[in-house]
């Protein structure tokens, strides 16, 4: 009775796969998730850039700012610098001389939305180098920083011109320095690059999400059959091991299909979006990383689905299994809590240790691989421990599964469970 027929596993897996792929929830989650992800990526950019602000508030119109000062050359230096650096994005005009009436007039224009803000550069401001910017756009840090830069430029160049330098000389001296980061060999400094980090975080999120949802899917599928007599019919034709293997493989294939579709969508997105492409190249997110992803996802899924299959065979309903479910997913929660610490110090002793723990390694060892190449022996040891744990989990779950799926009603006590385990 120990024959294990791969063709039966295949038939069972195929049914499981086809049934799950055809469900509406699969189609929806496959196409909605990347969309939400995209929003999550793009929204912050939308909110912070001034272009977006214009888009949101005043369409594409340039931001209008007034530079009010008694010192007209200084004010003109500011508007000139703004125009040189940012082109038509800002419409800066000069107002002079300063008076209370002038200020009231500017305040009125502000309330009428005729301008976005004005800079008040009086004698005191020049002496203390502290300038007031009255604006309707308190949150537009980009505009504020650019105005500040332009102002610093203007103050410095005016002083130099007063000291007898020529305008061309001043422009050359104050030419901004451009900084280009170059990746050091064998290091992962680029991880700190926000965009690259995002790609890895997204991959980790997908991994976590998929392990969880497809593990639970195996459990639900086991429970559904446990309640019905279909199990008896199936077990007349196939062994419990074949059933469990088929179920896990079929459901796992659904998960891989979904991830494959997502990667394809990401690939398509990258081919169309400069933003995604730079993000991927920034982190060296190339084929090897995706290969690692698929390997660790598959191994992680095998581990968690084995456990979930066992849990499904023990309990009769999701409600009953709830608290034990939590115990099962606890390591995943712990692993997700370790994502940031591992990202910042991927070779620290703690990172090394947690990436060895089989229940966390699919996430954390993958993360270390993404961040910085860990020593080969660490990767090998982590994989070995993970695979050994998978074998053990499959063995234990297989025994529980074999007896559990035939049980109705009452859920077993620990003593009964241990008897199921021992029973040859």
């Amino acid at each position, binding site marked *: 009775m120990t024959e294990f027929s791969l063709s039966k596993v295949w038939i*069972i897996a195929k049914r499981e796969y086809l*049934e799950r792929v055809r469900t509406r929830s699969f189609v929806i989650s496959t196409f909605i998730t990347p969309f939400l992800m995209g929003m999550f990526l793009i929204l912050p950019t939308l909110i912070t850039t001034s272009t977006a602000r214009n888009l949101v508030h005043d369409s594409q119109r340039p931001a209008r700012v007034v530079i009010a000062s008694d010192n007209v050359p200084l004010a003109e230096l500011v508007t000139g610098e703004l125009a040189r650096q940012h082109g038509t994005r800002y419409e800066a005009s000069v107002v002079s001389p300063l008076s209370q009436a002038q200020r009231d007039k500017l305040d009125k224009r502000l309330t009428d939305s005729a301008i976005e803000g004005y800079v008040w550069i009086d004698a005191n401001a020049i002496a203390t180098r502290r300038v007031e910017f009255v604006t309707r756009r308190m949150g537009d840090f980009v505009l504020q920083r650019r105005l500040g830069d332009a102002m610093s430029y203007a103050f410095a160049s005016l002083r130099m011109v007063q000291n007898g330098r020529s305008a061309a000389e001043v422009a050359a001296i104050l030419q901004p320095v451009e900084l280009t980061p170059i990746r050091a060999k064998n290091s992962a400094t680029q991880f700190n690059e926000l965009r690259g980090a995002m790609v890895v975080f997204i991959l980790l999120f997908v991994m976590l999400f998929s392990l969880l949802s497809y593990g639970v899917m195996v459990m639900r599928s086991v429970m559904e059959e446990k309640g*019905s*007599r279909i199990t*008896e019919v199936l077990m*007349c*034709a196939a062994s419990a091991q074949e059933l469990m293997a088929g179920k896990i493989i079929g459901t796992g294939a659904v998960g891989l299909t979904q991830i494959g579709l997502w990667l394809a969508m990401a690939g398509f997105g990258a081919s169309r979006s400069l933003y995604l492409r730079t993000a991927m190249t920034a982190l060296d997110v190339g084929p090897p990383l995706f290969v690692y992803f698929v390997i660790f996802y598959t191994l992680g899924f095998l581990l968690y689905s084995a456990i979930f299959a066992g849990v499904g065979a023990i309990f009769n309903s999701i409600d009953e299994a709830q608290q034990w479910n939590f115990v099962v997913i606890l390591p995943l929660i712990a692993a997700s809590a370790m994502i940031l610490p591992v990202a910042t110090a991927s070779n620290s002793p703690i990172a090394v240790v947690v990436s060895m723990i089989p229940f966390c390694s699919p996430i954390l060892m993958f993360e270390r691989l993404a961040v910085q190449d860990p020593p080969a022996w660490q990767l090998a040891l982590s994989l070995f421990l993970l695979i050994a744990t998978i074998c053990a989990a499959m063995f234990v779950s297989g025994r529980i599964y074999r007896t559990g799926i035939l049980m109705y009603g009452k859920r077993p006590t620990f003593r009964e469970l241990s008897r199921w385990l021992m029973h040859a």
Partner: protein
Amino acid sequence: MTAAVELLDVRKSYGGYAAVDGISFAIPPAHIFGLLGPNGAGKTSTIRMMIGITSPDSGSVRLFGERLRRGALRRVGYLPEERGLYRRMTVGANLVFLGQLAGLSVATSKERIDAWTRRLGIADWVDRRVEELSKGMQQKIQFIAALLHDPDLLVMDEPFAGLDPVNTMQLKDVLMELRTAGKSLLFSTHRMDQVEKLCDSICLINRGKAVLQGSLSEVKASNGRRFVQIDYEGDGACLAGSPLVDSLNDYGNHAELRLKPGADSQELLRTAMRALRVIRFQVMDPSLEQIFIERIARRDD
């Protein structure tokens, strides 16, 4: 001829509770066997060991003359009581899947599904989801699923549950045909009328033990001829006073009575003739239902 299935002193206990406690029987080819018993008697546990779902703690289960192996299960068909199909899948997809698991190719499965659904008048339902079907309809589909791979031994758990009289007849015809074709059939039930009409032999179990078994006529004979009906004229008091009578229903000119174990019906006839004018005296076979109730009730006392 070798028996399709043979159980020899099979025992199975679950956590100290003996679900099956020394059951033995054999089902030869071309034979319909009834496994009877009240709920929780051990019918399902017995069946599970016959179809390889569980293995006995002791004793042996032989299929087609050999120790039970997975391979031999290809020749076994199993019909569970109900809910033996995937509700969300179509009838056709369910049947093809089960046919494939039983070792058929997709093409052969489809061919046979077509033939069977036509035969049972449900060809139009093949593309419907199982959950849309009535209980009786589902039962027919399960029946087809069990027969698809042309098994030599068909094990059925309450096959007539949920079927109307027309469908019951239809199913019965198929079963008789299968018997003629030399198949062995077992069904477990607690509905005695069907067993009486169909079965060649029975095994009545209660609390894991066989209470009664053998061919239907043997069973009846060994339990029987203890029920007597008398139509008479005169004073029936002599019947009530007879040491031969166990229990009596006297209606004045018609009496139904049960003889004490070992009592001779001819002796009673002579007694009756001495005191009464006997118009009709009939010794009745007990119905299986009477035997069932009597045996189970006596055990439970």
